[in-house]
């Protein structure tokens, strides 16, 4: 051990050369350091003024432009001054720092290898235990990490994407839960409706028990006063000229909420798919691949608008397991 102590100072014995100011590599930082110093000083003073202004703007509640401008100006001036200081007033490189000798002294290395040899047996036994524990930990991690992969191979979503809350007899209600009457809309009117199949009336107050899903949102448009047929096979789906389509775009699921009453077009705000409400919302333009599903409408005993059946197809964008066209 005394040998090692003798060698200890060897690290500090090696001189570390630092580039001298007279080094030919060292360029002049600035031709006129005094002028640069003055400029930087002015910039710092400007920063102080800006910060003072920002403080005043804060206390006096001046407008955000004054406050933000002063704060930003002050920070910019500070940063500019610091950078200029470093660039123009500090000596510029390149600087070279020599490494000290990395190798240990020969007897230090000898004693190290002797110690390793002496303890080998003990060290190897301990490594076995640690190695086993490590392998167990990593193995459990690997198994857990495989769970999502295994799950993704598991049961298919089934009809989860095919279902919605609209049933035969679902009352159309607005976002406040108010049901829609025969005369709620005039021609050219539009509203977003949701299904409420469980309706309860207490003391004249109408309440509902089930909640619609986001995908159930439906646009209700009044196109005329008389029923019309959007496409053959959908007769009697539009009482009094009311027509309802799913509000979820068949392209990427945006809410198709733009209705142009003169053109009788529903427009999707995301990619400008256009659907004519008179002919079954067949896409007129844009990337939507399929018409918006149409909801068959009717009235219940109380004169409220209802769905006479659910949608005849899944709502929203297409998916892999989709079977209907």
């Amino acid at each position: 051990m005394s040998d090692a102590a003798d060698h200890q100072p060897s690290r500090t014995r090696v001189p570390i050369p630092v580039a001298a100011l007279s080094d030919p590599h060292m360029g002049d930082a600035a031709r006129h350091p005094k002028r640069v110093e003055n400029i930087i000083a002015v910039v710092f003073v400007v920063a102080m003024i800006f910060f003072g202004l920002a403080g005043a703007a804060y206390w006096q509640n001046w407008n955000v432009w004054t406050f933000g401008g002063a704060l930003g100006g002050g920070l910019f001036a500070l940063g500019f001054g610091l950078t200029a200081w470093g660039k123009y007033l500090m000596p510029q490189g390149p600087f070279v720092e020599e490494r000290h000798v990395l190798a240990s002294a020969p007897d230090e290395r000898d004693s190290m290898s002797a110690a390793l040899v002496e303890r080998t047996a003990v060290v190897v036994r301990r490594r076995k235990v640690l190695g086993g524990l490590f392998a167990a930990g990593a193995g459990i991690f690997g198994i857990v990490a495989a769970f999502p992969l295994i799950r993704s191979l598991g049961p298919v979503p089934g009809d989860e994407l095919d279902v919605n809350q609209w049933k035969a007899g679902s009352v159309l209600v607005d976002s406040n839960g108010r049901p829609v009457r025969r005369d709620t809309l005039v021609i050219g009117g539009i509203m977003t409706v949701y299904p409420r199949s469980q309706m309860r009336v207490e003391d004249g107050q109408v309440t509902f028990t089930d909640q619609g899903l986001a995908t159930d949102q439906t646009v209700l448009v009044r196109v005329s006063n008389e029923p019309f047929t959007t496409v053959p096979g959908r007769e009697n789906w539009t009482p009094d000229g009311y027509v309802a389509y799913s509000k979820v775009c068949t392209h990427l699921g945006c809410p198709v909420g733009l209705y142009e009453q003169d053109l009788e077009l529903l427009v999707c705000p995301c990619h400008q798919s256009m659907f004519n409400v008179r002919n079954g919302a067949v896409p007129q333009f844009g990337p939507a691949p399929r018409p918006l599903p149409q909801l068959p409408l009717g009235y219940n005993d109380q004169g409220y608008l209802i769905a006479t059946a659910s949608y005849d197809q899944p709502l929203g964008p297409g998916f892999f397991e989709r079977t209907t066209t």
Partner: protein
Amino acid sequence: MRAPLKRKLFRQFLLPAGLLTVAAMASLAVFFPGTGAGASGHADASQVSTNAKAVLKACGSVNTKGVSPIPNTGNPFTSTNLICHSGGLISYGNDSITYANPPASYVAAGRQLFAQTCSSCHGNEANGVGPGGQATIGPNLQGVGAATVDFWVSSGRMPATDVKAVEAERKPSRLTPKQALELAAFVNSLDPAVPAVPYPHLQGANQSVGASLFSLNCAACHTITGAGDALAFGTNAPSLQNRAVTPQQVAEAIRIGPANMPRFSGNLSDAQVRDIVSYVTGRLQHPTNPGGFGLGGVGPVAEGFVALLIGVGGLALVCFWIGERS
């Protein structure tokens, strides 16, 4: 040596840093105070208080095809207040909106004004029939109600500069607000109809409710900031951030559904219309823009452009300057 260094470090660095952090937190709390006042419940009191048959006699015949009979949604005969005089509908409405027809004395001036500025396109009797019996360029205006005429004229869309344009654009009106009402009085005298000109009472309006109704009913076309947007076939939803748009015009547009805009009738009560009007003229037209720069509120494309070009571009220039060898 160690201990004094530690103390020095504490005094000169850690203590000020800690104090600064506390100060920064405090200023943050001042800058972003919790939004205390939330949306309060909004009772929609709607009840029929008038006997339609009785008032029909005093009001004369009124064409109500443009409004829903649901109470307090712009229909005179199901409104809380209805004032008629000698066979003419004077005003109706409730605490939220008063709908009023221009006085009958305006009709004479309106007839003259109509002959000068409107008849070449809409016909002398505003019925869309020209002198030779042919259809005119403009549509039949009989039975549209005073609000429709007032909206199109007061917003400068009529008289149109280009009759072949897909859509008449808003421009400074060539006629005064009074002249717009005179025209409305004349056209309405030919076939009395509703809605009459709405005057929203904005004092009791709830802007929070208005904001949520706006996002549900209006934002799809006008965008959530009210900047307006292009629609199909050369049409567009105009900007609502324009401060020349008056509360009266916003209420009119909701009730009459001009051009391609849908007509909101029974699904928005007068109280809800008033809330939307208050939100549009109070908030949308005076955006606070806490970031300082609204960029017109036209969405992420404009914002991304500015962020990339000015933000990242400016940073790149600064980096070049810092890294450049002098």
